[in-house]
């Protein structure tokens, strides 16, 4: 603590340079924050997927259905607390550019399994009564300016024709990061109107009595349907969400690549800046060592300086990114979630500090190894 004044004085010695270096950290971590947020949006909620849920799909492919009759068999599997199911609808609202996910779900079991969806009681009751009813997420409602009571027509792409729905309610997530860009409607309405595929569902979602039993229950489910015409593949919801997101391309790789390039560039810029700063102060560092500052103290002073720059810039960038995401999805609802988690902020700050330490390491070691007599002669 007693050296903080010295570190601070060095930081403020060239205000413009320090400000620009802090600024470059801020820009990099701001970009990091946005990239992580976008990755989260494209990962289909993999980061916030329930740890107590398994997804059961057709082993051949996600797009192949499973029989409705599996419902009762799944309910019998030991360790299963509840089962629900959903079917991808693939409808178009007005224009194909207005894409959003629509699922036909089982009205009775869906909300028992997905407790993170919050629907006002009266709206949920209306949905239960209305066969043509639907619920939409808050982000989706905002995107199209829908209000409860609106009539929503969709053009079916899998099951042709115009399908009309009554907007009975708008759901929210009980925690940040829950996808509110979806539309849920009743499976019995789909089953009643569709011309083919009757008696099938897209996939099942199983809620576990104990999350620790995930592997055992998954094996029991898949074993039970082995060698049947509809073999199953059971995986955790997180793995399912990640696999689903990969259908849109490897967003994670994209994020990692861009983030990596940005941070590497930052490492070079900051490393160079710190090296210049230390070189300019060679005589002063020699004086510090002359009056008795130990090599390790000199090393620490330079490293702390670098870490303070990184920490301030990182915190500023991540704060700005957080504020930006709090403003809501800038696409108006195309992204299901637009949420920068505190974990991601912690990771970003950690990365910034790591880059700061790496950038400061070489100049710090150079300062530590400085030959005092030679440096004083040059001064």
């Amino acid at each position, binding site marked *: 603590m*007693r*050296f903080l*004044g*010295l570190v601070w*004085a*060095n930081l*403020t*010695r060239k205000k413009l340079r320090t400000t620009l270096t802090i600024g470059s950290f801020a820009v990099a971590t701001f970009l990091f924050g946005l990239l992580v947020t976008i990755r989260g949006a494209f990962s289909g909620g993999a980061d916030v997927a329930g740890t107590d849920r398994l997804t059961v799909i057709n082993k051949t492919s996600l797009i192949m259905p499973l029989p409705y009759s599996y419902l009762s068999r799944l309910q019998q599997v030991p360790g299963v607390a509840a089962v629900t199911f959903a079917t991808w609808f693939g409808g178009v609202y007005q224009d194909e550019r207005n894409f959003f996910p629509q699922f036909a779900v089982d009205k009775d079991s869906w909300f028992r399994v997905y407790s993170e969806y919050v629907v006002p009681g009266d709206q949920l009751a209306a949905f239960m009564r209305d066969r043509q009813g639907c619920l939409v997420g808050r982000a989706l409602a905002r995107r199209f300016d829908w209000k409860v009571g609106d009539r929503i027509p969709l053009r079916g792409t899998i099951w042709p024709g115009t399908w009309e729905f009554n907007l009975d309610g708008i759901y929210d997530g009980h925690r940040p990061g829950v996808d509110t860009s979806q539309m849920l409607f009743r499976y019995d309405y789909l089953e009643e109107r569709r011309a083919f595929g009757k008696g099938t569902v897209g996939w099942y979602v199983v809620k576990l009595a104990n999350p620790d039993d995930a592997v055992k229950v998954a094996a029991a489910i898949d074993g039970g349907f082995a060698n049947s015409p509809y073999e199953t593949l059971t995986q955790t919801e997180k793995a399912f969400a990640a696999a689903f997101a990969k259908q849109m391309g490897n967003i994670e790789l994209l994020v990692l690549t861009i983030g990596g390039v940005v941070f590497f560039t930052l490492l070079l810029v900051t490393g160079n800046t710190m090296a210049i700063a230390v070189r300019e102060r060679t*005589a*002063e560092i*020699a*004086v*510090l*060592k*002359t*009056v*008795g*500052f*130990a*090599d390790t*103290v000199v090393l620490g002073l330079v490293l702390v300086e670098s870490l303070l720059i990184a920490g301030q810039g990182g915190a500023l960038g991540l704060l700005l990114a957080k504020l930006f995401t709090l403003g809501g999805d800038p696409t108006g609802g195309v992204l299901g979630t637009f949420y920068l988690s505190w974990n991601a902020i912690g990771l970003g700050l950690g990365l910034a500090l790591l880059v700061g330490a790496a950038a400061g390491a070489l100049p710090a070691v150079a300062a530590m190894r400085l030959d*005092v*007599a030679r440096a*004083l*002669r040059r*001064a």
Partner: protein
Amino acid sequence: MVTVDGRGDGGLIRVRDLDKTYRRGSEEIHVLQGLNLDVGRGEFVAFMGPSGSGKTTLLNLLGGLDVPTSGSVTVAGDEITAMSSARLTAWRARHVGFIFQMYNLIPVLTAFANVELPLLLTRLTKAERRRHVAAALAVVGLADRSRHYPRQLSGGQEQRVAIARAIVADPTFLLADEPTGDLDRKSAGEIMELLARLVSEYGKTVLMVTHDPRAAERAQVVLHLDKGVLVEGSALGAAGR
């Protein structure tokens, strides 16, 4: 008593058979050769000699900033030439005050903060450090300039701050390398007056390198370094009179 024949009693500083050789490519440059020196407490010694005669090298070796090729330096019973780098750094903090020709103040720190630097390495509390710094600045006559930055001070005042920094931790001895080399005549006179006062009033031991005969006059003993060997000069300095 200052002697250079290797037969002195050591007193405070005892140097024996000190050699320092630099290597430049394949060429060996013998800067100091078999140098002996004994300095007692409270002495004011000036080293004179032509450029390249090894004055600053000798000062660096006495202050533990450089290591000799052979020979020994013992200060107050501690053989510093046998110390590790880390121990030597700690020893320096406790025993040596350095004064440089170019003052070498940290430009972004106030006079107060510059003087406080050596005390940051001690266990003194903030209040105690403040008292010590105030006392040191008062000794050099700059009590009213503590909040000034080096750029706001004249050369003479900067050197006074540097002297305050050198004495603030109450070191065993002071090493001054051309302390008046960058000052006008009046300021140089004031600095030399101050150094002489540190010896006469505060009992400090001062070893100074200088080119300036007027500055050397203030020392009790003037030693000449020529071709790496010390020869006794005069004991005519004002402090000795």
